[in-house]
């Protein structure tokens, strides 16, 4: 409230609110709108109708901004930006491993990667907790986009699509409540990671068209995928020559010195020194979450559609489409065929052996790709175990004298297992329950009762 540049009006959207927000906000003279949207973008759209000013500063309910943040954000807009955002930090009173990690990461991003993104003209995301834009700008793109699980990134890239320019107002600081426990942190990271991949599926044309966008998104993906490759190489190298590990400590030390120095420009040296190991360790978990999310969102086509986090709501993931399943089975079959061909050439196995091996490997590969989040896990598991045992039996029995009976049993087991697995795999998933931000759920389940509610997203 006490800003160096006072605001003309305050609009508070109390969405699904159960505390005294409405009374407190009204006592300060704010325009209060009560909604039951159950989502941020939809609530912001309702609030947008009440805004009369030409510049809009959006602040989350769990965020506090510095006393000069409004002035700095407005200066940025007056200097020519169409939208800008503040740099965030965890609340000063927050403590703990996950908060120390986040504090370090935010401080590092302020003078490193977010600065770099803004410099090349494609800030990855206008931080949803505190950003500013012209009212006309957001109205011109039809309001706040709310179809993806992370609406702030969707907004940012919708602005790029409309030709607007964003900047990073690193001088403006905002303090927000960050997750303090592993459980909540992981939920938040799963949502953020899902939002990242959903966003670049939805806005892929923007990435392809713009060299700056390709640089920003491409560099992130390269870092994500290079991690397992790099560390596999390091481990293999270390197995071959353990002395090679002597390079690891200096490289981590160099990383620590550079990043701690950059972070210390924003937070205290003590916070930076304490934060680095937390950040370094948490980064492994972050990348693991991002890597698995990449597989789930882009390969399995199963999209995170529920809003979770501190609210503690259940995670909802859209079902895989039947065409995606058939595509995955085909891809798995192609891989298995190549593997079986190699097996046949190497072991001089007979054609039936090779064919059955193809079936077994196909089923195993399809199963491996779809095991997680599949409601019929046990059925699939049983079928695949049967198929695997059958395939293994065939591979062995065909070379054993007098093993025809076992060969027949193995053949039956394999057939039942593969057919059962395919039927279970292609079977209809249970219909998901609708929640906000479910654009992908609608596309994944045409003909369902979701399809008749396209505008309920906003």
């Amino acid at each position: 409230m006490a800003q160096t540049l006072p605001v003309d009006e305050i609009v508070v959207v109390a969405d699904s609110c159960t505390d005294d927000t409405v009374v407190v906000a009204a006592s300060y003279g704010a325009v209060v709108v009560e909604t039951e949207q159950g989502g941020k973008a939809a609530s912001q759209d309702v609030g947008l109708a009440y805004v009369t000013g030409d510049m809009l500063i959006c602040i989350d309910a769990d965020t506090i901004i510095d006393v000069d943040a409004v002035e700095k954000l407005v200066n940025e807009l007056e200097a020519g930006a169409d939208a800008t955002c503040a740099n965030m930090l965890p609340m000063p009173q927050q403590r703990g491993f996950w908060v120390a990690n986040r504090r370090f990461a935010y401080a590092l991003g302020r003078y490193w990667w977010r600065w770099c993104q803004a410099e090349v003209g494609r800030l990855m995301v206008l931080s949803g907790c505190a950003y500013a834009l012209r009212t006309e700008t957001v109205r011109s793109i039809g309001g706040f986009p709310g179809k993806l699980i992370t609406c702030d990134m969707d907004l940012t890239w919708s602005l790029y699509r409309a030709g607007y320019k964003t900047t990073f107002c690193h001088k403006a600081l905002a303090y927000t409540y960050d997750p303090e426990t592993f459980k909540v942190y992981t939920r938040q990271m799963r949502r953020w990671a899902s939002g990242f991949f959903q966003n670049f599926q939805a806005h892929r044309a923007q990435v392809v068209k713009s060299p700056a966008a390709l640089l920003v998104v491409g560099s992130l993906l390269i870092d994500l995928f290079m991690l397992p490759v790099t560390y596999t190489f390091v481990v293999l190298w270390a197995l071959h020559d353990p002395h090679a590990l002597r390079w690891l400590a200096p490289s981590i030390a160099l990383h620590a010195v550079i990043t701690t120095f950059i972070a210390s420009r924003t937070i205290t040296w003590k916070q930076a020194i304490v934060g680095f190991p937390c950040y370094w360790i948490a980064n492994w978990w972050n990348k693991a979450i991002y890597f698995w999310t990449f597989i789930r969102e882009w390969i399995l086509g199963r999209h995170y559609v529920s809003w979770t986090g501190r609210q503690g709501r259940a995670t909802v993931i859209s079902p895989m489409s039947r065409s995606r399943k058939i595509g995955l089975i085909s891809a798995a079959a192609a891989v298995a065929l190549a593997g079986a061909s190699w097996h046949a050439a190497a072991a001089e196995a007979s054609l039936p052996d090779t064919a059955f091996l193809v079936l077994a490997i196909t089923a195993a590969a399809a199963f491996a790709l779809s095991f997680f989040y599949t409601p019929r896990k046990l059925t699939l598991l049983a079928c695949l175990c049967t198929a695997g045992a059958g395939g293994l039996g065939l591979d062995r029995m065909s070379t054993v004298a007098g093993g025809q009976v076992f060969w027949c049993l193995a053949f039956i087991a394999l057939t039942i297992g593969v057919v059962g697995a395919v039927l279970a795999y292609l079977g209809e998933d249970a219909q998901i329950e609708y929640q906000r931000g479910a654009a992908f759920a609608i596309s994944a389940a045409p003909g369902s009762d979701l399809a008749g509610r396209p505008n309920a997203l906003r």
Partner: protein
Amino acid sequence: MYGHSHTGIGSLVLTLAAAAKGGIGYLVRVIASAH
């Protein structure tokens, strides 16, 4: 990328590109201000 540290070859490339662009922008501003 949200909450995900940007460390590796990709971040190095991005940093160099940003530094190059920032450096060129700085030179342009200096030259422009000289006139």
